[in-house]
């Protein structure tokens, strides 16, 4: 069992809690699903309960909720203008979901929902799907102007259009991989350094003394991961805003 504790990959395993199998698909309620539910419940409860008094002069927790709201609101308004505000609930949910999932993942023994590529890719595909669907609904074929920038010489146009298309198609990939890789790498590093503490301590007095170094490292990394948790949620939300701006104003 000691080997399990040090295994840095162990924390990413999916464990079935309630096996569900429908039409040949494994749709079990897993630890991942449990932590998705936890993320949603924690985020929703925080936002709901801290604002329940609707104080004119906010308390500390209500300020936190309002800050998150205005932070995302300003982000979206800066990137996509006032028309973009119709996507505010969407961007706000994305930001809160990713942020709370990242933060919950920092607790020991907790599962990190965003460390699975399929989750981050699902969210990224949702963003790009929204951009594509809304873009075509709003502008029809005019949405394709997104791939044809103004003022480009005609002989360069095919090349530029190709590059634009590739960059557009790689957006969901980069959006999802960035978040996933950050969380995965951070948690593996954290686990490895914490594992050093455990294995060194098993070596007696010298080992305990020597384990101070990886312990300090683990503390520092935890602080860094806290920063990364915020930063990646912010980056995800900002990029979402910029992509939504493309759907609103495809002509650059």
């Amino acid at each position, binding site marked *: 069992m000691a080997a399990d504790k040090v295994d840095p*990959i162990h924390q990413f395993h999916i*464990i079935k809690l309630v096996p569900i199998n429908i039409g040949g698909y494994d749709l079990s309620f897993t630890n991942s699903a449990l932590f998705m539910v936890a993320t949603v419940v924690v985020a*929703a409860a925080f936002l709901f309960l801290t604002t329940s008094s609707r*104080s004119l002069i906010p308390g500390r927790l209500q300020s936190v*909720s309002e800050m998150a709201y205005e932070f995302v609101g300003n982000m979206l308004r800066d990137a996509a203008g006032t028309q973009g505000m119709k996507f505010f609930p969407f961007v706000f949910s994305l930001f809160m979901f990713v942020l709370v999932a990242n933060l919950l993942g920092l607790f020991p023994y907790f599962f990190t929902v965003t460390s699975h590529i399929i989750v981050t890719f699902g969210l990224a595909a949702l963003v790009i799907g929204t951009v594509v669907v809304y873009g075509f609904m709003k502008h029809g074929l005019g949405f394709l102007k997104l791939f044809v920038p103004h003022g480009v010489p005609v002989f360069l146009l095919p090349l530029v259009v190709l590059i634009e298309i590739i960059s557009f198609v790689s957006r969901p990939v980069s959006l999802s991989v960035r978040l996933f890789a950050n969380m995965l790498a951070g948690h593996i590093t954290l686990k490895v350094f914490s594992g050093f503490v455990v294995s060194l301590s098993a070596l007696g007095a010298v080992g305990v003394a020597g384990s101070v170094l990886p312990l300090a490292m683990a503390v520092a990394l935890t602080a860094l991961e806290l920063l990364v948790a915020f930063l990646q949620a912010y980056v995800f939300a900002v990029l979402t805003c910029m992509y939504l701006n493309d759907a609103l104003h495809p002509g650059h």
Partner: protein
Amino acid sequence: MFVTSAFAQESAPSADTSHATTGGDTHSGTGVPAEAHGAFPPFDPATFPSQLLWLAITFGLFYLFLKRVVVPRVGGIIDVRNDRISQDLDQASKLKGEADAAVAAYEQELAEAKKNANSIGQQAADAAKAEAETARKKIEAALDEKLGEAEARISSIKANAMKEVGSIAEDTASAIVEALVGGKASKAEIAAAVKSVAR
């Protein structure tokens, strides 16, 4: 949605090939269910349907909750606060306007009062000057009168004295004539002589 399938085809096999060998032996002793075997867990396609489903359920509910409840509520709180602040600012500027008007009215009244005070002072000064002038004139007139009287008295006294000087001269002349000549000169002669000398 074409993106999803393209990515799944691209990523899933590469994940399998790169991690299948390392994943196999790490899992053997961890007691993880058999479904997760053989792959680095985040790239194990066997978990994808379940994770996508639960992500859709949880995120969908979260989105609806935020859209229906949280966003209107927090937006409402912030709007009410902004309204209140702008209302308070309006009231403050209104009160400031009132205060400014009061100050202006006060200053105007002060200026008027100053003007009134000046004119009253001027009038009082004029009246006092006029009174002083009349009083001075009256006193001057009285003094002139007294001066006139005094001059008249002096002139009458002088006339009397001159008259008496004549009789004294006559007496003295008669006494001198008597002493020198030894005879008595008549009064009329002496008076004529004095008169001629005094002339």
